[in-house]
């Protein structure tokens, strides 16, 4: 079992550095998704971990072994890392079993190991197929088997599902996740797809401008992002201007909201962020004369996603917010609604 420790990592391709003083810690057996938009440096991080790129500063250690640091650089073939590249990158001139056996020696035990890993990924029937004869998903399975065959300490996955169609992506994702959890291999997956990161990983590490901005469990990341950019990046967000009213609450155009986590230092003008599924819409007419919660608004747009819909509402304050409803929208365009928040908000200084 091997943990991964990255400290003060700076790396690039000769120009300005792509990774700037990056720190990352992955526990042994953990499955971490590194999430970032293109240009965030996530692929560069993967290249440094695999040993394809020599960093200019910082250290990388797998377990007790430092693989990169001042005066130390272990070449890829000595790192015991496995890599599952984008679109598989199988060796086109070798059949499936030779691809999988590429990292193994020529002993009879290797033959059994090939069968074993191919069975693990459900590809044993295709042992003699050529990569060109396989579908995209099958190629990814073989690429995973190839990476796992030499029993790597650390497995690196570079957007392995991005080239697959939606249905297959979800199935394969779940299967890979179950397999890797069962094997207990320390795994790092790089992706730009927040849904993928949230659904597959034990922890999600968000990268921006060559630095790690937050690393949390998926639910914590989604519910309590460290800053407003992260909030916007990991999901749809509802942003309301707010003022601190003491204790653990702020006042917004949807009324008083409870704060999750830390109270901001600047308490004057802040932004409160909710998720669209934390809002519900009700009939706007006042009920029994008592002070009604939430705020009034008018529906100005509806985006239908199949499993749910986003209803865009303009509040009387002029702010535009989104409300998630399951399935089809129950309200129609132009309708007046009352929007009521449920649950706490994350609050950020402006």
């Amino acid at each position, binding site marked *: 079992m091997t943990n991964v420790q990255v400290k003060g990592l700076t790396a690039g*391709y000769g120009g300005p550095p792509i990774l700037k003083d990056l720190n990352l810690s992955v526990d042994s057996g953990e499955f971490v998704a590194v999430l970032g938009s293109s240009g965030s440096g996530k692929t560069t991080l993967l290249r440094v971990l*695999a040993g394809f790129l020599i960093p200019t500063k910082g250290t990388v250690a797998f377990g007790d072994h430092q693989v990169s640091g001042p005066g130390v650089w272990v070449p*890829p073939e000595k790192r015991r890392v496995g890599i599952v590249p984008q679109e598989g*990158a199988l*060796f*086109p*001139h070798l059949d499936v079993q030779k691809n999988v056996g*590429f990292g193994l020696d020529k002993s009879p035990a290797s033959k059994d190991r090939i069968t074993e890993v191919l069975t693990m990924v459900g590809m044993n029937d295709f042992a003699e197929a050529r990569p060109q004869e396989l579908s995209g998903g099958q190629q990814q399975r073989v690429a995973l088997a190839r*990476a796992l065959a*030499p029993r790597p300490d650390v497995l690196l996955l570079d957007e392995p599902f991005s080239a697959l169609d939606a249905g297959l992506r979800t199935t394969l994702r779940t299967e890979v996740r179950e397999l890797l959890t069962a094997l207990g291999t320390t795994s790092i997956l790089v992706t730009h797809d927040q849904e993928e990161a949230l659904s597959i990983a034990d922890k999600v590490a968000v990268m921006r401008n060559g630095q790690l901005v937050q690393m949390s469990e998926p639910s914590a990341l989604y519910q309590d992002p460290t800053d407003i950019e992260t909030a916007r990046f990991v999901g749809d967000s509802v942003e309301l201007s707010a003022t601190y009213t003491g204790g653990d609450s702020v006042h917004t155009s949807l009324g008083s909201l409870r704060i999750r986590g830390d109270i901001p230092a600047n308490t004057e003008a802040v932004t409160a962020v909710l998720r669209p599924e934390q809002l519900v819409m009700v009939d706007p007419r006042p009920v029994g004369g008592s002070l009604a919660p939430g705020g009034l608004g008018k529906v100005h747009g509806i985006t239908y996603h199949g499993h749910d819909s986003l209803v865009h509402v303009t509040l009387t304050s002029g702010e535009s917010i989104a409300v998630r409803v399951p399935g089809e929208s129950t309200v129609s365009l132009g309708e007046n609604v009352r929007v009521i928040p449920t649950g706490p908000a994350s609050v950020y200084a402006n």
Partner: protein
Amino acid sequence: MTRNSGIRPPRPLIAAAVVSACLALIPLFYLIVRVASAGPEKILSSLLRARTWETTLTSVSLMVVVVVGCLIIAIPAAALLTRTNLPGRRLWLTALALPLAIPSYVAAYAWLAQFPAMSGFWAAALILIAVSYPYVLLPVAAALRTTDPAIEEVARSLGRSPFAAFQNNNSPQAMPAAAAGSLLVGLYVLSDFGAVSLFRVDAFTRVIFASYRASFDRTSAAVLASILVILALILVFAERKVRGKSLQYRSASGTQRMAVLTQLTTRGRLLGWGFVTTVIAIAIVVPVASLLIRLVEGSRRQLDVMELFQATVSSAGAAAGGAVIAVALALPIGLLTARYRSKWSTGTESAAFAGHALPGVVIGLSLVFLTINAIPVLYQTLFTLAFAYAVLFLPKSIGATRTSVAAVPPILEHTARTLGRNPFSAWTNTTLRLAWPGIAAGGLLVLLTAMKELPATLMLRPTGFDTLATELWSRTEIAAYGAAAPYALALIALAAVPAFALSLAMSKGQPEQMEDQQAPTQLDTVST
């Protein structure tokens, strides 16, 4: 990512590429050394001699006449065969590309055999036009065919007349193609040895060869060779610039419709057919018919099959040596340029491409000087001859290597490393293994092209070593036309394969293909 952008290439690779480029530059370097060692007085007196300027004038005039002739044939032919409904267009275009497979000295020999009185400037110009106009025709035809008719339609809808719209649309694409083709033709003429020698035109190559033979005035040969190289270098650089420009005008993507074809009247059709058949008659029918007549006549006498076989084996042996050296030199340079974008890659590649500017006669002369003065052991050896072939055709091999390596994703090699292979094993099992067929095909192309090389072979071959080209040459020199015919036909058969590869690349008109195929092949026939 196809390149390891910004990553420093490994030192051994840089070292190997630099060594290769230096080896390729030896002939040029030694030519400069030879000229410089003559001292300023001798150089000046050589330069000021009337013969020097007469030779320059002859070569340049021949070049201008041939280029103009090629344009006069190629541009109407290209327009006729791509933009009108002339029946049989495809077939005509293929037929018109055939002269690519006829080395200039074979064409010259064939005409001489039929019309022994032919001689002089205009005879040489006619033959050179007949063998080199495809260098203009094919790229122009490709440019006209790939022009997006939508642009022409927009121009018409904006009020331009059909003719103005055609010009407006096609000039930006066809003009650079014609210009690049003309420069190739110019280079071909400057480097041509066979046609000018057989027709006794005192152009650079013939005069250099003669002064080398006379062997009392080698400084003047070296000075003439230097002027020739400077002129050729200007053409090479101009060609690269123009070609780069012509690619900018290509539309980026999307399928293009075929251009709207001009409907010809019956009279137009007859004129069109008359035009192309005349060109084909001069460029192909006459020389081939002459060869066949000679062959039939010659077969009444005894054809020495053993000798023909021996010459073929000799040609193939020396050329195979050249191909092996070329591939070995091209491998590090091709690898460096395909995988890393750096000053090293562009530098070594340009150095190696300088071979384009060195006609066979110049490489021959320089290596004769070098071996006699510095390494007499290598004088007139097969090794020196093979090395000359390698330098002459190195660009072809670099092109093939670069394209083949660039087609292999670097991630395969990286993945092999993570699977425990050391750098060399990872490289041989992925990149080299997958690129090898393309690299070998490039080597084969070098082999076939080198088999028909004439001037460097004449100067560098070991005594008594005869190739197809030199056998044809010696028989033509003594007017033994019948005995020469089998060698001429064998040479055309050999030239057919590289010619086919070249015409394919030029008529596809694909930017990358042009970049990789046309440039390396441009000197195919030049060296013959």
